[in-house]
């Protein structure tokens, strides 16, 4: 059983389109995250939710909108896609998220290519 799963695995789309990436975790964790890993392999936090509440919101264009229907799911919707959005997007989860030093469990990633 996959602990943190993401769909789709690959996403190729045209500039200007709107797309969504879905994430689900079956670990019973309270906190979920979205990261972006660019071509230089730097992994940067975008958002995190704790029990459906937004707790981390980094400097991300407002074309990116996370949605958490319940604590096991965190989806990422991207409007008006741009070339610079091409990257690998990782979802992750951690047990609580209120304290520091928690292990994060990552999904397999979604490879987004904007043409």
């Amino acid at each position, binding site marked *: 059983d996959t602990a*943190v799963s993401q769909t789709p695995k690959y996403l190729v789309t045209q500039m200007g389109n709107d797309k969504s990436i879905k994430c689900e975790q079956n670990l019973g964790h309270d*906190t979920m995250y979205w990261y972006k890993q660019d071509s*230089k*392999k*730097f*992994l*940067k*936090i975008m958002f*995190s939710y704790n029990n459906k509440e937004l*707790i*981390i919101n980094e400097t991300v264009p407002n074309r990116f909108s996370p949605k958490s229907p319940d604590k096991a799911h965190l989806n990422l919707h991207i409007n008006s896609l741009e070339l610079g959005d091409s990257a690998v997007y*990782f979802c*992750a989860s*951690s047990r*609580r*998220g*209120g*304290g*520091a*030093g*928690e*292990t*994060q*469990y*990552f*999904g*397999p*990633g979604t490879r987004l290519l904007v043409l």
Partner: protein
Amino acid sequence: SQKIEQNSEALNIQEGKTATLTCNYTNYSPAYLQWYRQDPGRGPVFLLLIRENEKEKRKERLKVTFDTTLKQSLFHITASQPADSATYLCALNKAAGNKLTFGGGTRVLVKP
């Protein structure tokens, strides 16, 4: 601004030797430092966590040190094996909140 630096050049090492990776940081006071492994096409996988008041942590063939004076962590893989070939990421965490800030990773290639 906060900066976390890992050697961006790949580390080529002979099987059986010890691989040593560095993670240096500036303008940051982490309470925790974590190391993750990332294989091509996959998400990072947690390996070890060390707290600011700990000098060293071990897990099987892995050893991590944390020197808050030098603002540096060293990650050692002893008796390295080809299966250890991957990219290793360090990540820093402050005392409050669970925001992890990652370094750029160091790729390790263990040759048989």
